[in-house]
């Protein structure tokens, strides 16, 4: 995970020439901090179907070597699509939504 960036306005001597902007990417910014509910992964109910990874609109399902391993909470907005789509094992969901504690 890249370090979290804070925008600092540069002067004309330090700015890249013309309005050159690095490719837009939320990867370097914390975009999930306004979430009210978060998904929680229950590994024993997970069949590794990767539906959550397919459906996640924020690329916040962390997959390593083809296996679901958890969530990127810096970017997850808590939409709950993963929990809805999760087929689980024998009727027990592998993802459930919990309220964020503030």
């Amino acid at each position, binding site marked *: 995970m890249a370090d979290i960036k804070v925008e600092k306005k540069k002067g004309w001597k330090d700015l890249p*020439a*013309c*309005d050159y902007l690095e490719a837009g990417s939320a990867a370097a910014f914390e975009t999930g901090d306004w979430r009210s509910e978060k998904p929680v992964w229950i590994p024993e109910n997970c069949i590794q179907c990767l539906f959550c990874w397919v459906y996640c609109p924020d690329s916040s399902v962390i997959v390593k070597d083809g296996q679901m391993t958890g969530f990127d909470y810096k970017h997850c907005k808590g939409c709950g699509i993963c929990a809805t789509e999760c087929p689980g094992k024998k009727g027990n969901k592998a993802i459930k939504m919990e309220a964020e504690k503030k």
Partner: protein
Amino acid sequence: MPEKKNLKAKTGNEAMAEAMRQINPDVVAAYPITPATEIVQIFSQFVADGLVNTEFVAVESEHSALSACIGASAAGARAMTGTSSQGLALMYEMMYIAAGLRLPIVIAEVNRALSAPINIHGDQSDTMGARDSGFLQIYCENSQEAYDSMIQAVRICEHPDVLLPATVSTDGFIISHCMEAIEMLPDEQVKEFVGSYKPKNWLLDVDHPFTLGAIDLQDYYFEHKRQEIEAMRKATKVIKEIGKEFGQKFGRSYDMIETYKLEDAEAAIVVLGSTAGTAKVVIDEMRKQGKKIGMLKIRVFRPFPFDDIREALKNVKVVGVMDRHDGYNGYVPPVCSEVRSCLYELDKKPKIASYVYGLGGRDITVEMITDIYQELLSGKTDTNTKYIGVRE
């Protein structure tokens, strides 16, 4: 004078097309317009004959021509085009964009009057209308200068301290269609001089994606424009260095201005383009009669060579500035306005007289320039702009 080698009979348009062939740009997008049509017409033949590797884009307007060049240049290509008059006017919108995005596009420009009334002949109103666009502007006295300046312009524009586009212009028909013997360089020497274009950022570089041309509001626009202003200021040094290097390699040196018999001159004219050649004939004739006269030719109008002009004219008593465009500010035309502005800094200011000539291709003759010198020497000049050769 060293013996000239490899002399070829070329019109101004042919000379510019030949320079483009030797530069071998990646992309040329163009639309025909008199008197610049031949430049890209001849060049398109080079493309058809396989003499260049250029992608030639036959677009539907000049606005599209420069737009295509902007896209190509941003993508990482060396891009060029050619146009004149209304064609350049149709490019105006895109010229500011090419300059603002810092894209080193070179336009082979043939100076022609702007409509209305419609007229296809030479005056400098087209490029003068683009003088605030952020383009470098090089005005050529003859075909040789046009050929040499096209080659230098590529290097100047692509210099990391500059990264601005340029127009290299010739006077319509007077240079564009008149045949002269020019000294051409061997293809490989031009290729070596211009080198290959290696942009720092280019949009087709998929490993380093970036956005170009995004909205830039109150918080950043000013800083980016300040950078563009600085690039224009730094261009003077680069133009001088490259003009000197060109001279060392090929025997013809170039600078921001050219002076002719100005050292002891009491009266001088300031002029751009082909009229400088006519003025040299007048100066030689009048010098024979003991008249102390000289000339300052502004080769590069953008950036404006303030320091050089001030230094060159500081001891002249009276200066006549000749504009081939009026500027319609109701006072003095643009070249005179800027020359006067830079001479104002001198403690001992020369008297300045303003002349507008040659609109719509009206001839400027040896006799007319002689009359101007006689008026300057008579001491009877005033602050009103005079219109040379117009019927009262």
